[in-house]
């Protein structure tokens, strides 16, 4: 829904870590509860990277399946259904989220070539 804004935020994080070097790859980890549509994020990235002076930076997405710990039955389970956040074993909503809220830039690949826009002859 707001994948364009998310890509701008990703580009900001990348810039602060790339130290002006050429960015080849950006790796992003996204939990299932982040409600991000991967195709839409990739599409927006292909636009945002040009404005962010990293036109060759490839976005690699790593998705994390949501997992909950149920306070009713005590079990940890992965959530496979797209909608529900209920405990898959006993249907309780009284769960703590163990995984699925991740949304971070994990790493970059950079190389010594300068970004094109800042190159001066």
């Amino acid at each position: 829904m707001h994948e364009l804004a998310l890509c701008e935020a990703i580009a900001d994080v990348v810039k602060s870590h790339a130290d002006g070097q050429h960015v080849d790859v950006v790796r992003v980890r996204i939990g299932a509860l982040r409600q991000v549509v991967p195709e839409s994020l990739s599409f927006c990235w292909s636009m945002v990277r040009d404005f962010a002076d990293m036109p060759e930076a490839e976005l690699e997405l790593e998705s994390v399946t949501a997992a909950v710990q149920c306070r009713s039955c005590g079990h940890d389970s992965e959530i496979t259904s797209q909608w529900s956040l209920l405990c898959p074993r006993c249907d309780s909503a009284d769960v703590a989220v163990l995984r699925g809220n991740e949304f971070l830039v994990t790493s970059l690949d950079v190389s010594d070539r300068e970004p094109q826009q800042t190159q001066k002859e």
Partner: protein
Amino acid sequence: MGRFHRHDDGTVHDHDHGDHDHDHGDHDHDHGDHSGYRTGSQRVDVLEAIFAENDARAGANREAFESNGVRALNLMSSPGSGKTTILSATLDELGGDVAVGVIEGDIATDLDATKLAGRGAQISLLNTGNGFGGECHLDAPMVTRALRGLELPGLDLVVIENVGNLVCPAEFDVGEHAKAMVYSVTEGDDKPLKYPVMFRAVDVVLLNKIDLVPYLDVDVENYVTRVREVNPTATILPVSARTGAGMDAWFDWLRRFAAGAPTD
């Protein structure tokens, strides 16, 4: 255009490497070769949350509220659920004893602000339409900007009317102390299952438009059950902003919240 990079005070943003835990130590810089050819890729570990800047700004907003003794409520719903209608009735009721500020984010026009004007509250309009992502949620920097339109020292409570949307507003901390949601009985009782992230995030649900129950094939108890299924702890208040039914319970909740007292 960047929601995370707006600089209302005209300053140029500079990432402060001092307050992150950035590790730049493993770079092996060789700036000698500027031939334009890649001389070998190397990996830089980052592990930085993409919402880190938003969350830092939200923290600053929260501090601004707290240093002025103000409590802030983030009010969310799908479009047309009744946020503005509930808010105008609320301003009329609380006007005398609770000093309220409103940040009006759900606007394509100034229609909502016009409805809320003249009810004794300070109102700060946010034009959310002028940027990418701005149509679908409020973020912390936008609220920072809106705060300049309010005199916080004179207020007890700030209500932030978010953009009508059940998906992304829940993802962005704007510095509030609690999240409220308006869910009207015209929307269908499947919404908690379809938008569990939003429904789980809220502290209070106003089940609105119960005056329409006789005309719809619905039952309030069923709506309450559906909300409970994804959020066992939220306060659920069936109301009609139109007739005023149930609204006293909401006013009580909000008075306790504004006073910083327990709400459940």
